[in-house]
């Protein structure tokens, strides 16, 4: 394999892996901030227990997210130096801003939160987790603005002398319609994951009500985690609706900004009006032979244009237009990948939302909790659904942009580092893959251990007077 192919695989592996940890960091930091606020307002020690319990889970997840994030910033230069040279003037700005405005805030205030329980006043201590959480979401905005520029380049010009892109408007870059649409989508998808994690945690404890062994504390545990379960179900359902709605906004932008990606999402080869949406297809997806498919009429037109009989351009039509505009070349992404990841993204997200709705119904007020073990098994294992959804979504949006790194401006094959040998990339890819697999195993084991250990009761001494640093290493 060439440096190009290896570098693409490495970028894919490291980025997908990094994004396993990012959404939970975004969602849990805000959830913990809300729980701690509730504790300060209502003075109910249950909220303090949950703050600390989900806080520790957050930190296990955060550690892996942070360290894998360092790789992200470095590998643009390491593997994609031609890209970095070409776009640095534009793309470097949001990255530098992310570090200066968001990373410092996130890490400094998180350090204060972890170690500051007995050093700061309760209000000030609460402010630190809010600032860390805001830093996290702010960081997501900057990196999504950078990514949005690759999907839909704005506010730049290509210098004819240096043949490099140059920024002409930072405002245009930061208010790119694509960034304004993708940030809410990613933000709500993060809560889809966070809600699913909260559900899984609560379901495990409702299934194994331990407490300190006596019946009274077991009943307390059930009462507490019933509330937690309902909270998780509510978050998941709301997040599913919001993720779908923001994704729907993105679909129209994609149709106008990257029509090839829209066509590739449906494997629609010829322009149609109206266009139907296939729930799934058995066949080769190469436009020749479709054995069987289940189709919803008008739906693709509706997604892409908001108009039932609206026109959706086909892959072949767009490809011909691109050849005319950008010169000869192959402008088709890998269609089976875009086709299936688009469906899996939507399908996993909707399934998570649907299960949450059923869960809310089954646990509704004044009703006993379900006894069937399959209810809890589903509630626990459903945690993988939104993770698969977000992973599919990123693979779709990045693979759907191919053959471009910067749409219409720079191709992926022109982006790779000139001086890096395939053997170097084989080494780095192997090292990252093995290291990340080990980290996943360790972090997963620690997270499960922590979840099973549960939320210990706060002793009265802990709530009054100075405490020992709760989270110190």
């Amino acid at each position: 394999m060439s440096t190009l192919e290896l570098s693409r695989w490495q970028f894919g592996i490291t980025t997908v892996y990094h994004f396993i940890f990012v959404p939970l960091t975004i969602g849990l930091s805000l959830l913990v901030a809300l729980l701690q606020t509730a504790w300060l307002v209502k003075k109910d020690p249950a909220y303090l227990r949950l703050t600390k319990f989900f806080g520790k889970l957050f930190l296990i997840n955060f550690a892996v997210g942070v360290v894998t994030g360092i790789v992200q910033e470095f590998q643009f230069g390491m593997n994609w130096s031609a890209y970095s040279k070409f776009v640095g003037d534009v793309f470097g700005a949001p990255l530098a801003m992310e570090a200066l405005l968001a990373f410092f805030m996130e890490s400094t205030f998180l350090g204060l939160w972890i170690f500051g329980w007995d050093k700061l006043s309760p209000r000030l201590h609460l402010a630190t987790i809010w600032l860390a959480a805001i830093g996290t979401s702010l960081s997501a905005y900057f990196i999504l603005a950078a990514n949005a520029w690759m999907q839909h380049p704005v506010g730049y010009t290509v210098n004819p002398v240096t043949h490099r892109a140059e920024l002409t408007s930072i405002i245009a870059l930061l208010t790119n319609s694509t960034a304004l649409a993708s940030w809410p989508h990613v933000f709500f998808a993060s809560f889809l994951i966070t809600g699913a994690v909260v559900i899984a945690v609560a379901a495990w404890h409702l299934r194994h009500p331990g407490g300190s062994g006596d019946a009274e504390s077991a009943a307390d545990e059930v009462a507490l985690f019933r509330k937690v379960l309902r909270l998780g179900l509510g978050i998941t359902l709301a997040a599913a609706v919001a993720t779908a709605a923001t994704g729907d906004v993105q679909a129209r932008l994609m149709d106008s900004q990257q029509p090839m990606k829209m066509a590739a999402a449906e494997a629609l080869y010829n322009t149609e009006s109206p266009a139907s949406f296939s729930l799934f297809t058995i066949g080769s997806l190469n436009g020749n032979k479709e054995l069987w498919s289940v189709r919803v009429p008008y739906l693709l037109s509706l997604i892409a244009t908001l108009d039932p009989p609206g026109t959706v351009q086909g892959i072949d039509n767009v490809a011909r237009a691109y050849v005319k505009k950008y010169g000869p070349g192959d402008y088709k992404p890998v269609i089976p990948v875009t086709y299936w990841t688009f469906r899996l993204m939507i399908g996993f997200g909707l399934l998570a939302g649907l299960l949450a709705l059923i869960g809310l119904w089954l646990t509704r007020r004044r009703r006993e909790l379900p006894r069937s073990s399959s209810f809890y098994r589903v509630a626990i294992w459903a945690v993988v659904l939104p993770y698969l959804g977000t992973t599919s979504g990123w693979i779709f949006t990045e693979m759907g942009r191919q053959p471009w790194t910067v749409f219409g401006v720079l191709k992926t094959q022109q982006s790779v580092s000139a001086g890096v040998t395939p053997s170097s990339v084989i080494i780095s890819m192997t090292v990252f893959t093995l290291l990340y697999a080990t980290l996943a195993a360790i972090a997963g084991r620690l997270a499960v251990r922590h979840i099973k250990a549960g939320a210990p009761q706060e002793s009265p001494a802990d709530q009054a007077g100075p405490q020992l640093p709760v989270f110190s290493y």
Partner: protein
Amino acid sequence: MSLPAFWFILIAVLWTGYFVLEGFDFGVGLLLPVLGRDNIDRRLMINAIGPVWDGNEVWLLTAGGATFAAFPLWYASMFSGFYLALLLILVALIIRGVCFEFRGKVDSPRWRSRWDVAIVVGSAVPALLWGVAFANIVRGVPLNASHVYTGNLLSLLNWYGLLGGLTTLSLFALHGAIFLSLKTDGEMRHRARALAVRIAAAAVPIAAGFLIASQVSHGKAATDATAGLAAVALVGAVWAASRGREGLAFTGTAITLALSVATLFGDLWPDVFRSTTSAAYSLTVSNASSSHYTLTVMTWVALIFTPVVLAYQGWTYWVFAKRLTRSDISMPTATDLPPAQVGGRP
């Protein structure tokens, strides 16, 4: 001052922040098995840097981001050129970062001792390699006409590069020992201070040798002054440490690191990534920089937000200014106690 010159200085400042701050937490990591005689000692050491190490590491990310935004050609050539060296640094930083969080999560001496090894290796590798990298940047590396690095990992391991690596390794160890003597109390404070003086016996000649070698080959009048002052600050730091004046000693090693970075960047100026193949192939402050507009925007962002960051990071150090002692380390875990006592616990 031109904007590219301003950004050259700002990037030097960011690296200074990184070396001064993460320098001591690399040092604490390196000295874990030396000063940490038992688990309480080790936890004391880790907690001494606990609230700040992650924020310290962001200085590196900001230096990287600033280089990307202000000198894209430098970022592209250097990061792809130093591919395998950076891979080693990244792996070390990844392992080290999760160590602090994961080490205390399982109460088993075997679990902890594995993470302790990882902390030492994860601190030693970047502490050594940052010096190797910077020495080679100043010395120059083989770059072709398209500014593409044509050497390999081994070409970085020349004597000057290795001397640079030993300089950062030993200075960070010294800086870390002095930090611990400033941040802890009791036995740890005294042992850390005594160790600092012993480390200095190696660090002072190594750093002096490296600074002299740098000035002989690449020096200028201005950097002769900064190098000389760096040496004075270093000797002063050791003197202060030996007299028990930890605050002064820490200021001394911090100034040494800052002036050493200033010396190296001064020696590099006006190049940013120097070619040994031909001087014409070097990347310079002017031919590697971003457009005037980008630099203007980023200058405003930096001028507004850097003071804010400095203020809240400085405040963090003030919040955690109190010296830590063994008794601050919360409840000993079962395996901290001698085996005979374990059975007696409820």
